[in-house]
């Protein structure tokens, strides 16, 4: 294995996997959308408060109780009643410990949700960096597995950032979100509705008219409409402030971000080197056992033919034909080998036509759409080609599909290829070593592979590699 020990980090930056941020709230529709988004964030916030209470609450309460009991015990030690209390508190803390990993995971998921939504709704990108889950030989239920899981979660700064976000969110975030929502809500409930009801001919409603001098119907309506308008006007601003707050708490510091980036690069580099070395070994072995061996055999056959040519011309001729056949076999093997290293059609025509050639060789009809206005760098081209080749092979082997489609394009500074089939779905990147291999290959170029394959299909795999065309 590699000699580059590097902590593993999975990078997740929402803008890589999401449609370009659309959340610039402009116009009346935009402002109304901002209100809806604020309400959405508020829902997340409430879930976060519950989660925070579940996660951190027992620790705080249990700690206070224990402290209190210990202070109590120092005074009157022999009371058995207190010891039972201590044991009770410890036991409930242990129970709480059992569900702690799940709770922490939920906290992280909530924070990730927030950063995704702030990218989609507010156009504020929050990079997230997670230490990936350790590969576990121990099941989650075992003590070792539990320790590993908890160590992983508590050792990942992202967990603490997520917890801090829940706390900050519950106070500062709540205030920010409530400004537009309360303004609109209160404007409608406390002023507009009573204002309408105060018109002559309406019965006084359930909400009493605010009691201040001059609380006539037009004044109330004016105040109400003003509050609704102010809330709506303010909504995009507070939403941006909210997303900024989230970024301030959730995004790793610049230095931490750099550290994580370096770790990521070191890991992908070592994986690339490993893959390259393994590939060279394979080529060496193929040449050694294949073409090289055949050439040796051919030399021997030709030598024998040379010795026989005067004494037994017929036998010599047979040997010569044999040598010819061996050379044809050697050529076939070399051709297959070259195809595996760098397909000639890719060198000749570039990625789009090479993918078309792959589609023609596929056992099922594959439709290829899209064009590339130029050629990506050769290493990217090669990695993308083999990724598509592997994906199409998977479709033919596992998907039980009738047809497949490939779409290639270059947009927003990235090469984007989608492979879709109408098969049975259920492809799992975690299980298939092939998909994992593609991810590794693409990671060397900061590329990503996203597979969506619900059981019952269809399967859609999208690979994206940031690159420029030449």
């Amino acid at each position: 294995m590699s000699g580059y020990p590097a902590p593993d980090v999975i990078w997740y930056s929402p803008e890589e996997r999401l449609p370009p941020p659309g959340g610039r709230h402009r116009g009346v529709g935009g402002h109304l959308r901002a209100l809806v988004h604020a309400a959405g964030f508020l829902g997340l916030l409430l879930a976060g408060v519950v989660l925070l209470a579940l996660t951190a609450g027992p620790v705080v309460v249990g700690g206070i109780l224990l402290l209190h009991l210990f202070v109590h015990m120092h005074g009157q030690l022999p009371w058995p009643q207190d010891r039972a209390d201590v044991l009770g508190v410890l036991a409930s803390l242990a129970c709480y410990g059992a569900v702690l990993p799940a709770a922490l995971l939920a906290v992280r998921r909530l924070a990730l949700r927030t950063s995704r939504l702030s990218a989609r709704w507010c156009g504020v990108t929050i990079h997230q960096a997670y230490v990936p889950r350790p590969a576990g030989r121990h099941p989650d239920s075992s003590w070792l597995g539990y320790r590993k899981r908890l160590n992983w979660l508590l050792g990942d700064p992202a967990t603490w950032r997520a917890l801090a976000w829940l706390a900050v969110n519950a106070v500062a975030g709540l205030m920010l979100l409530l400004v537009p929502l309360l303004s609109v809500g209160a404007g409608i409930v406390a002023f507009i509705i009573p204002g309408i009801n105060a018109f002559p001919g309406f019965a006084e409603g359930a909400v009493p008219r605010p009691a201040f001098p001059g609380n006539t119907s037009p004044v109330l309506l004016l105040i109400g409409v003003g509050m609704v308008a102010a809330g709506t006007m303010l909504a995009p601003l507070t939403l941006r402030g909210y997303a900024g707050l989230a970024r301030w708490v959730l995004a790793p510091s610049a230095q931490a971000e750099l550290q994580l980036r370096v770790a990521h690069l070191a890991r992908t580099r070592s994986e690339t080197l490993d893959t390259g070395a393994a590939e060279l070994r394979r080529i060496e072995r193929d040449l050694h056992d294949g073409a090289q061996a055949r050439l040796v055999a051919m030399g021997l056959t030709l030598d024998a033919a040379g010795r026989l040519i005067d004494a037994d011309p017929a036998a010599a001729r047979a040997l010569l034909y044999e040598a010819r056949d061996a050379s044809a076999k050697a050529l076939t093997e070399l051709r297959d080998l070259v195809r595996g290293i760098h397909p000639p059609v890719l060198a000749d025509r570039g990625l789009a036509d090479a993918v078309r050639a792959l589609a023609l060789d596929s056992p099922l009809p594959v439709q290829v759409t899209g064009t590339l206005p130029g050629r990506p760098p050769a290493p990217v081209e090669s990695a993308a080609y083999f990724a598509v080749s592997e994906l199409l092979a998977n479709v033919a082997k596992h998907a039980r599909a009738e047809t497949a489609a490939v779409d290639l394009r270059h947009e927003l500074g990235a090469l984007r290829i989608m492979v879709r089939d109408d098969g049975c779905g259920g492809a799992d990147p975690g299980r298939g070593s092939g998909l994992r291999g593609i991810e590794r290959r693409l990671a060397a170029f900061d590329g990503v592979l996203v597979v969506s394959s619900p059981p019952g299909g269809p399967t859609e795999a999208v690979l994206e590699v940031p690159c420029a065309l030449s």
Partner: protein
Amino acid sequence: MRVVIAEDLFLLREGLIRLLEAYGFEVAAATDNGADFLAAVRKGGCDVAVVDVRLPPTFTDEGLRAALTARAEFPGLPVLVVSQYVEQLYARELLADGAGAVGYLLKDRVLDGAQFTDAVTRVARGGTAMDPEVIARLLARNAAPEGPVGRLSPREREVLELMAEGRSNAAIAARLVVTERAVAKHTASIFTKLGLQPSDDDNRRVLAVLAHLGR
């Protein structure tokens, strides 16, 4: 029969010249790049061209493009393209104009002189010579049990392979050691199963079959 050759590897070019001359062809010009090849073709008096796909200066598909240009300028000019590897994509492009008189072979096939020169003659006479590897991949694509090729009997499949390579009924009969009438029966059955209009013209039927399978 006058041949123009475009092949950049000296040894292979000389080998081709020697082989073709040994079988009674006349080599009108032997060039080592696409531009010279086109100039030689434009001079006229060429019955068939043998072109390597990869030629200088780009060492990509320069030869193929030169061959397609020559065919665009001189419709129906017989061209045999040889290459170190075969791609269905290129076979399609060569067949696209539907005029026939096209060949696409692996360079390995040069090793069997008689077969190779037979292919050159066939192309020169307006026929087709597709490499067995192209055909094998084309058939593999259509080999699903419900697909057009899946419904053929093993013998019909053999006949289809040889026919798609561009061979005449007589040649197929000789190869499979059966009578020509038996081959004719098989081809009729193949055309029925593929849903194609039967044709006595060797060339037209090959193009029909290739077009059908390559859809």
